[in-house]
């Protein structure tokens, strides 16, 4: 896999976002480095999910959203008129809070991305099979599921579903993976498994992870962003943010005084 050519995979400059007339993001300027895992922490309702969903422009599904400012993904301004949303979303994968495999077989979930991005009938079966095996191996599902690739994905355990949701991004060779509290629906064991998985993907993808779990942020992330009321308060290496927070609001949060 080629190295990240831009030091920063995700950048925003003066980003504001409104739901109707409620402002959810305020003047956020952030630069998220390529190839590392960056955590996004902050109290409930501070805009983490909203911020995350800006990078693949999936916020625009809701009719009442308006944004201003600049967002760059891999150096490219994603609001430029020549940007193709489908291509953008191909290179920026997203994992949701609740595992949401499509109501299809395990196999079809993994190849879904390939199918929608290729003309009908242009993908040889062998190529799809290989992609499925590779993706499922990456997420440690292959050994458990290789004999049941045609079971409905919605029948899997939650942990397996979430891994599958990560696996289905991989055949599209994304550079960025956005995860919104990927472990919040899982038990301790499932959480551990997903964390191990993130760890094994580290370095190959730029990952931005929303989490409510301070311990998790410390375990898996290299840098962290602390947000409060739609404002980016502090962005530093995880160690610095947790041990030597510069802003007293960050300090208050990580010491558990609110949130």
């Amino acid at each position, binding site marked *: 896999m080629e190295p990240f050519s831009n030091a920063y995979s995700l950048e925003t400059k003066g980003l504001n976002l409104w739901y109707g007339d409620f402002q959810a993001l305020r003047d956020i300027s952030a630069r998220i480095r390529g190839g590392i895992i960056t955590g996004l922490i902050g109290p409930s309702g501070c805009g983490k999910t909203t911020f995350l969903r800006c990078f693949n422009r999936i916020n625009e*599904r809701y009719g009442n959203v308006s944004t201003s400012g600049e967002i760059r993904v891999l150096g490219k301004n994603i609001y430029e008129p020549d940007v193709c949303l489908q291509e953008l979303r191909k290179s920026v994968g997203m994992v*949701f809070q609740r595992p*949401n495999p499509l*109501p299809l077989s395990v196999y079809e979930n993994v190849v879904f991305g390939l*199918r929608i*991005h290729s003309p009908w009938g242009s993908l040889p079966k062998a190529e799809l099979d290989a992609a499925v095996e590779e993706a499922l191996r990456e997420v440690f599902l292959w050994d458990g599921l290789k004999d049941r690739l045609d079971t409905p994905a919605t029948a899997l355990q939650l942990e397996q579903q979430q891994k599958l949701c990560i696996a289905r991004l991989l055949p599209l060779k994304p550079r960025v993976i956005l995860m919104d509290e990927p472990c919040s629906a899982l038990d301790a064991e499932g959480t551990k498994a997903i964390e191990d998985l993130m760890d094994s993907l580290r370095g190959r993808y730029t990952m931005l992870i929303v989490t409510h779990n301070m311990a998790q942020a410390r375990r898996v992330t290299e840098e962290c962003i602390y947000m409060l009321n739609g404002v980016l308060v502090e962005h530093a290496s995880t160690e610095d943010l947790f041990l030597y927070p510069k802003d007293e609001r960050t300090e208050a949060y990580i010491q558990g005084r609110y949130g």
Partner: protein
Amino acid sequence: MVGWIYLCGVSSIIFVFSIFFFVFREGAPFLRDRFDFKEFFFSPEWYPNSDLNKRYGALALILGTASVTLFAMLIAVPFGLGAAIFISEFCAGKFKEALKITIEILAAIPSVVWGFIGLMVMSPLIIWATGAPVGLNVLNGGIVVALMSLPVIVSISEDALKAVPDTFREAALALGATRWQVIYKVLLPAAKNGLLAAALLGVGRAVGETMAVYMTTGHSVNIPFDSRFPLFHPLQSVRTLTATIAAELGEAPHLHPDPSGNYPPEAHHYQVLFVIGILLFAITFAINLTADLVVKGIRRKG
């Protein structure tokens, strides 16, 4: 008080059974004395009034119903599905509400008004456009019935699409699917049971429709196809099962049996109309039951 509520609740069961009992009782003597399976289902000769040789072949009537229903569904299913997709996936807010209300109003237009439109508006149009000698035929009835069954198809399909969790749409969109890919790769498969049920209820509506069909299909007992149109000929006039009952029940004498329990042959006309009623009952019952099971199927899975 509780007793009253209970009565209200079970009244529908009582009504269904009483109606079925009544229809069956009226038709039973024909089934016992005169019914000939082969004649009824395979002969197009419907001469219940003939003085010398009464014949009760319902094939033409069955085919009349079938052709009008089929033609109506060919129009209403794709169109209704399209409308449902439009309402559920492409519209929001006030416009969506307005559309849904309009479709409900469509459902509230009385049958006889539709018949009137078929008679006065569509018929001349059909004559003008196709050069057919009469404008009252399968085409006319089919279009009218299509419009009449549209509301139920649209609203049930829309419910089915609405029931697909939004997370599926989001998952597909986030993988870079276009709107259309989301629709045909995710939504339609996920909602297929509900959509099938919608189509079935549309069929049920079409089979049972009476007055509008009576007024628009030309009312002639006819097998609506020939070698050139093996499926059906849209410009043939037909007569449906329902229209036959509506038209003939008034003139068929309701006679009583002699003391030994035998009916005169003239009594059979009235009775055979009830046998047609039983047939319609059976068809719509089967359709509704299937639709119900299909819908329950989704619930159990999802």
